[in-house]
């Protein structure tokens, strides 16, 4: 079975802190994605990557950056956390051309 793991299920950070969310997949997938999910807004794509060191902006990249130094790992970085970044963050991966994304369990981030 494909496994996508995220570093934390719950995280509480203070405004202005730098926050790292880590995602690891074990199926050698080319594509990896970061989404955030908020009530009434569904899932919104923040960034995605189709190869090591490659990244593309999604629909809401402002305030976020990403890093993909190894194929299996995709990190989301909040350079200076703000309260409007309180959300559920979901990571996903997929094999190129499959169209089937595998999601991690999510990280619920609260910024106070």
């Amino acid at each position, binding site marked *: 079975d494909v496994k*996508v793991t995220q570093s934390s299920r719950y995280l509480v950070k203070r405004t202005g802190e730098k926050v790292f969310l880590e995602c690891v997949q074990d199926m050698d997938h080319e*594509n990896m994605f970061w*989404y955030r999910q908020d009530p*009434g*807004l*569904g*899932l*919104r*794509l923040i960034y*995605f*990557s*189709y190869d090591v060191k*490659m990244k*593309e902006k*999604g*629909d809401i990249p402002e305030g976020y950056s990403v890093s993909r130094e190894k194929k299996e790992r995709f990190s989301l970085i909040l350079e200076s956390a703000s309260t409007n970044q309180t959300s559920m963050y*979901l990571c*996903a991966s997929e094999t*190129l*051309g*499959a*169209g*089937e*994304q*595998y*999601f*991690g*369990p*999510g990280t619920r981030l609260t910024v106070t």
Partner: protein
Amino acid sequence: LAKTTQPISMDSYEGQEVNITCSHNNIATNDYITWYQQFPSQGPRFIIQGYKTKVTNEVASLFIPADRKSSTLSLPRVSLSDTAVYYCLVGDVNNQGGKLIFGQGTELSVKP
């Protein structure tokens, strides 16, 4: 990217067949239609994907008319455990770095 429209919510009873229709008027030639299911506090899970006509797997069926401007997810004989949010997505899965857009989804509530 093609935008999708689906009902915000639906109610059903155990044992009934449930059909959730998704509208995607601007679907492109290379786009596939994919459905995901999401339970509370979990990431979405792939259910089914199709390009045209009908696709069936052990979980659901997907009906796509010839003009491909809509699609219908059919869940046979639902149970309480099918209570979840169902997302319809349209996108070119073969496009490197291709993105899929998750809308708000349809919240299905199955009652005893």
